[in-house]
C-alpha cells in the first residue's frame, strides 16, 4: 500500500517555508524521508519511528503523528539547494511492507 504524498509539486521562493505530507491507510511503524536531486540518486534525510521523537537537522525537520498515520516534513527558510523530489517511505511493521511514496517535487526559485 503505497503512501500518499501531498502536494505533488510545490514552487517556493528562497527563504520561504514548505510542508510535505505523507499519509498511509494503515498504522505505521516507521517513516523514512529521502531527497533526490534531478539526475542523481536518492539521499537519506531522516527516519521517524513509532513512539520516537520528532527529528530534525539544520532547517529540515519532520514529525510523525501515529494516530493520523501521517508524517510531515518541514523545510524552513528554504535554500536553492533544497530543490528536488522528496520521497517518504513507510513501513507497517518492522521489516515488513516497506514502500516509497510517489514523491513531491520541490522547486526553490531565487
Amino acid at each position, binding site marked *: 500500500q503505497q503512501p500518499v504524498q501531498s502536494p505533488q509539486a510545490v514552487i517556493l521562493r528562497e527563504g520561504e517555508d514548505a510542508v510535505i505530507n505523507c499519509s498511509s491507510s494503515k498504522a505505521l511503524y516507521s517513516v523514512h524521508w529521502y531527497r533526490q536531486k534531478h539526475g542523481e*540518486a536518492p539521499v537519506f534525510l531522516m527516519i521517524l519511528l513509532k513512539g520516537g521523537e520528532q527529528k530534525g537537522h539544520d532547517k529540515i525537520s519532520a514529525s510523525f503523528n501515529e494516530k493520523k498515520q501521517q508524517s510531515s516534513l518541514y523545510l524552513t527558510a528554504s535554500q536553492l539547494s533544497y530543490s528536488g523530489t522528496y520521497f517518504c517511505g513507510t*513501513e507497517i511493521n518492522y521489516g515488513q511492507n516497506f514502500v516509497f511514496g510517489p514523491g513531491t517535487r520541490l522547486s526553490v526559485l531565487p
Partner: protein
Amino acid sequence: DAGITQSPRYKITETGRQVTLMCHQTWSHSYMFWYRQDLGHGLRLIYYSAAADITDKGEVPDGYVVSRSKTENFPLTLESATRSQTSVYFCASSAGLAGDNEQFFGPGTRLTVL
C-alpha cells in the same frame, strides 16, 4: 573507494535480449535492493536480498532475476527485455530491513529497451 557502484550507467538494448545490471557495495551491508524508477510511480522495489543466497520478491518482480553469491554483489538480470522495462534502475544497500536503517543508493542505471 567505499560506497555503492552500478554498471553500466547507461544501456540501450533491443526487445528480447538479455541484460544484466551490476551492483557492488563495499560496506558489507547485509541487505541489498533493486528499485526501478518511472515517472509518477516513485521507487518500486523489484527484489531484495537479506544475505548471500537469500533473495525475495518485491512489488514488481516479473521479468527480472537476481542472484547474490557474494555479500558485496547483487546483479539484476532481465532475461528477455521488453519496452516496458525501460526505466532508471537503482541499487541500494542497508544494514537492516527498514526500521531504523537508512538505505544507501547507487548512482543508477538508465536502461532503454528499443
